[in-house]
């Protein structure tokens, strides 16, 4: 990976921290570990460029609060959020706040390493982002009315069952629409779908 880039890893669980540092090291990343959001904020001075990989649920300050704080401070490191409990609403909130990706624990190493690669590439590449936005808008146009309704439900952070209830259709039908939305949008997971849709609308 980029020689000067550092992955800043924030997780309150020591085993997760150590194992992830080990994994990232075997993949050739330079890693700094922090046991809490506050500990990370204390060491902001002389912060090395790169990206942040942070847990959501942590004592003291959680991942989302850290995200807000960093924005206030004008720190523009791309951030990947990890969660031990798949919560769609949380994912949507994180993505809206500008997270690069939202990854559910436990995860495949390729998934995280891929997200880190995207995060590190993203620094300062505005032109690429514009073309991506245009592509997303095109794809949004191709959705059917129903698919768009399901997408809205997903963006609002609702689980399939609730969306089904709201639209008066079966959860299975929602699953099918959701799968179609993912395919048409070319999104490999919900977090990506939320991120690209929100970016296109901004």
């Amino acid at each position: 990976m980029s020689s000067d880039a550092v992955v800043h890893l924030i997780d309150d669980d020591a085993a997760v921290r150590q194992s992830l540092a080990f994994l990232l090291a075997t993949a050739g990343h330079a890693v700094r570990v922090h046991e809490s959001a506050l500990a990370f904020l204390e060491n902001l001075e002389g912060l090395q460029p790169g990206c942040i990989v942070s847990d959501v649920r942590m004592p003291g300050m959680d991942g989302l609060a850290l995200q807000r704080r960093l924005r206030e401070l004008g720190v523009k490191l791309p951030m990947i959020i990890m969660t031990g409990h798949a919560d769609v609403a949380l994912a949507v909130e994180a993505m809206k706040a500008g997270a690069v990706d939202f990854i559910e624990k436990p995860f495949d190493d390729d998934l995280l390493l891929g997200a880190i690669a995207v995060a590190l590439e993203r620094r300062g590449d505005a032109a690429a982002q514009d073309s991506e936005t245009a592509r997303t808008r095109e794809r949004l146009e191709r959705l059917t009315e129903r698919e768009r309704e399901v997408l809205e439900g997903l963006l609002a952070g609702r689980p399939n069952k609730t969306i089904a209830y709201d639209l008066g259709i079966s959860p299975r039908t929602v699953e099918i629409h959701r799968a179609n939305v993912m395919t048409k949008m070319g999104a490999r997971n919900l977090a990506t779908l939320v991120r690209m849709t929100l970016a296109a609308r901004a």
Partner: protein
Amino acid sequence: MARAGPPTPQTDSAADDTGRLVERDALLTSILETVPDAMIVIDAQGIIQTLSATAERLFGYRAADLIGRNVSILMPDADRRRHDQYIDRYLRTAEPRIIGIGRVVVGLRKNGDTFPMHLSVGEAHTAERRLFTGFVRDLTERQEFQQRLTELQSELAHMARATALGEMASTLAHELNQPLTAVANYLKGSRRLLESGTPDAVGRASEAIDLAADQALRAGEIIRRLREFVARGESEQRVEPLIRLVEEAAALALIGAQEYGVRAAFAFDPAADFVLADRIQIQQILVNLIRNAMDAMHESPRRDLTVSTHRLDRDTIRVDVADTGPGIAPLIADQLFQPFVTTKAHGLGVGLSISRTIAQAQGGELWVDAREGGGAVFRLTLKSARRAAAAEVEGAHEL
């Protein structure tokens, strides 16, 4: 007010007495009209003497319709038959089970609706007779609903654990995913190392694999702790009076029943008297089953909930919770007790699987049958407590 006060010392004039009586009557009337609690005064035969305006509204009767009737008219069938015995027993033994104590019971309105209420009873002696005054608080009242629920949770401590069933799944997912994440990271990293063929790869990878194994054991430890949380050993089992256990759980679960338009009926088998069980855990199951039944009937034209008890044999007692909902599709009946299977729009699908685990840990079983005429019946078996053993502790456990 039901307390007659000390006998008046002066008896010099009958007119004075009459005056005092009139005054006292006026006082009583004004109290009954303004007291915010529903208040009902009965005599030792259970006959209603007088009641407050709030009580009229609460039960949907006019005072004139109730005065002179047996108070059991305000109770569901099962209690109705037993109320006279309750009074008799108290008059005979002078052993209070509700007087001065108060408990949550089920009330019956004129229109047939049942509702959870908190009842406390005071006793008064006059020269000629004994009177009992009941104070009733409706636990379904909207503005108090949340607060009351919270109070009940802390008072009785079981709803807290019932709610915990749902939250537990979320906590569990988080807790378990930490070591699982570590295991995956260590193993994936080890593979990368081994593939890289660097000189110290094998040594570093073996260390990482050891750490992965430690984390797998940590995951196991979390599951073990969960088991202990769900079914806390047999030490908590006691001889419990079944009717009271069921009534309390039902009253709790029926909070808000009015909004569901559910009618609750109880049928208690007199031979199913005592069980050997952890009361709180069994109540947790019953609250869960009754709540499920109420949810299931949400869209049914008929919403009858029936809780009944049955003695099966010397050692076994069964409690049935029957509803008139759509019933359980045969396809899902087999998986219903598996974790994370649910028919609800919201819900994690852990309630029934945990309930069954608890039932089995208590030496019982939990299963579902189709109700005759539509709907579902959840059946819970419990260990019967031998009568002899029960007699020894009866006083200690009943109010």
